[in-house]
């Protein structure tokens, strides 16, 4: 904790800000669950003996980062997901729902390594065009990594050697850099409106990084945030099924045979895969 003092300081600033703004963070167990890890021990977690003792009877969450090595990256990720799905009068936001941990675990998974995708070369350098333009290219042209290929806008094609995990790291780096360039501040320290501005720049594809489109990174970030909010809680997000409660979604239920013709909207207390499998 002594090296890289500055960034630790920043992280602590973030946590203090969050701490003041949102008591829910503590209530949701994130601090105790070590969002900022050992950094907080001296600053906020001067846990008394009594607190420690009462903790023992509470359900403990063993969340920790398993993909993002650096606190700073994770703090930035957390702040960005919270802007995508913020805490408000409807209920918890992304951080309290555990979305950053969800994304961390997804990045460390087979999906984050693109383990089920076709990742063989050559990887052409891809330039996206606004409108599809017909290209008269030699029929049997061999594509090399230096060939520039035009793709229609919004193509479903993913033509990079980068895995999703790397994509996240690069994307967060680029967000940090954009934040410094534009506001001279770290992303986590920006006002929410300023953070939104950065996110919008990414959404519109206005930021360039490492040969991929920043709008692709934004859609990955947005999609995983939504997934983390609403996936079954077994994946680390949707803590305590709170997002399902907000939406009135019941989770996996064995049968709706007796309810499918009901006119009234039926709200049930949600139940998760854990209940469904009878654990």
């Amino acid at each position: 904790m002594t090296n890289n003092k500055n960034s630790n300081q920043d992280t602590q600033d973030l946590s203090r800000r969050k701490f003041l703004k949102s008591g829910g963070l503590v209530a949701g167990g994130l601090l105790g669950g070590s969002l900022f890890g050992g950094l907080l021990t001296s600053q906020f977690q001067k846990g008394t003996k009594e607190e420690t003792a009462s903790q023992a009877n509470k359900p403990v969450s063993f969340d920790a980062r398993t993909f993002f090595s650096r606190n700073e990256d994770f703090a930035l990720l957390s702040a960005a997901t919270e802007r995508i799905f913020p805490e408000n009068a409807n209920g918890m936001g992304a951080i309290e729902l555990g979305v950053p941990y969800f994304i961390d675990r997804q990045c460390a998974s087979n999906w984050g390594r693109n383990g089920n995708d076709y990742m063989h070369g050559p990887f052409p350098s891809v330039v996206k065009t606004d409108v599809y333009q017909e290209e008269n290219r030699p029929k049997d042209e061999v594509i090399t990594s230096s060939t520039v290929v035009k793709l229609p806008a919004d193509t479903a094609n993913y033509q990079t050697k980068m895995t999703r995990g790397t994509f996240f790291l690069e994307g967060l780096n680029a967000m940090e850099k954009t934040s410094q360039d534009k506001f001279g501040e770290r992303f986590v320290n920006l006002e929410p409106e300023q953070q939104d501005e950065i996110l919008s720049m990414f959404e519109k594809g206005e930021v360039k990084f490492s040969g991929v489109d920043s709008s692709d990174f934004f859609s990955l970030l947005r999609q995983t945030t939504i997934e983390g909010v609403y996936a079954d809680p077994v994946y680390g997000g949707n803590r305590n099924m709170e997002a399902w409660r907000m939406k009135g979604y019941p989770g996996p239920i064995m049968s709706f045979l007796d309810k499918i013709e009901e006119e009234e909207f039926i709200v049930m207390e949600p139940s998760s895969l854990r209940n469904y499998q009878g654990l």
Partner: protein
Amino acid sequence: MAKKLDKVDVVVVGSGWAGGIVSAELSKAGYQVVMLERGKDQTRSDFIGVKDELRYTNRHEMIEKLTGDTITSRVSIGDAALPVRLQKDMNTGTDLGGGSMHWAGSVYRWRSYDFEIRSKTIERYGEGKIPEGMQIRDWGITYDELEPYYAKWEQTAGISGEPDPLGDKRSNEYPNPPMLASPAIKLFKESAKEIGLHPYQMASGNMSQTYTNPDGETLNQCMFCSFCTMYGCDFGSKSDPLATVIPTARKTGNCEIRTNSLVRRVIHKDGKATGVLYTDTRTGQEFEQPADVVVLAAFTFSNNRLLMLSDIGEIYNPETRKGTIGRNFTGQFNSTFLGATGFFNDKKFNYYMGAGGLGGALSDYDADLFDHTDLDFIHGGGIELRQYGDGAIKNNFVPKGTPTWGEEFKEKSLFYAFRTLTVWYSAAVMPWWHNYMDLDPTYKDEFGDPLLRITNKLTEQDKNIAKFGIEKCTEIVEAMGADIIDQDELPDQFNHGYDGMHYIGGVAMGEDPETSAVNNYLQLWEMENLFVVGGSALPHFSSHHPTPTIGALSYRAAEGIEKYLKEKGGLLTKPKSSVNA
């Protein structure tokens, strides 16, 4: 060196509906069958307790992994094709039962118009109606000839439904009554009726009651559990090969099923297939399985690629428009399933409940059931409202203009959760000279074999038909009383998304060996003991889902193979040359 195994009567590649039906019928008839499937073995117990939206819908647990191979895709003949790299963009089935395990189960017969599309179009509108380059033709079989095979498949599969009031003649009732209708489906049907249309309850492969099929397989009543499309059914209520034809084949004692067996070549000598070469995907060991008859039932992509890699038949060349393998590629892509979405401020629907094939449908704007004289397209589309049972990740609809993230998104997506209904038009797709399959010059699979390359461009026909459909869906959503209506947008161009498994052609059936690869028993003109079964045989894509037509043609092929084995050879139909494109 490949290890050579003992010869059998029939080797079948693929274990979906197509391979399953052929294997069941031939093993029932007493022939020795070996069925080869590249994916793993699986049973119903693999699906028990796994209702998990992230794992199945978003992470594609049951979909083919692309680690070893994929397809490459481009729009125009001059372009360099690029691989479809992500599993989410390329949904094909794998594992025992194939894509036929995670299908939704929406069931439609194709129309009598489809089977004679060229003659019927010319008869009503004149030759000028068919644009240059649109390669439609009659199929070499009529609806009436195929009807008994449709009926047979529906009995095996245990379809629940009521007849389409505008449908073609049927020789029998559906074996099961229609599914229960939810309030959303009732609203759709009543509103459509009010504006003079002919809605009905969609037929489905989800069981409306417990049912035992003619082969003695029992399926259970559907629970409307909603984890259906992209999932295996853990109640044994969805009609799939593991609940029907695979156990039927097994029971005969004549069918050996080998999973983890990736077929890489059809072996042939002197114009006859002698067997197949396959690799055990666990050990890498190669085997040669000799057989009297080889059946490819490995879905459109593998069927085409295996023929091309094995050097059987002539690959279609768009410049000369000669060659039949790879010709007439079509499918339903981003220009189909477009329509309108209604947002209801004062109504909430229990839309988290549902089943894959639960919905309302109508055919008023399908096939040639409406006048095309002043329209700039031929054929049409089916209109549907489907209640799959939306998961929480999926159900995040907001009216157009709402931000897709942030405070307002959260607020509105929560408000409109379960207040949103979509009606879509599933448009037919015609074959064109410039849409086809061949082998990619650059990209290879894990064995160093070239990947299949798809060239596919949306045409004015596709855009015009979609535009028409979006308007018709909007009228219905209006009649349903939605407060806000969002129309889907027309795509500029094909987006290389292959995520619905509705892709067909390439080994298309017909009467003329110049323009078709197989006859109406799906027997290859060029190699009489090779039968190529599945969507690859369909010469154009009709307005609805393909599986019942694939099922019907699989029964037809099984009959042909039996005939071929009994009669000890020969072409089962005589080739006719025609002026058909």
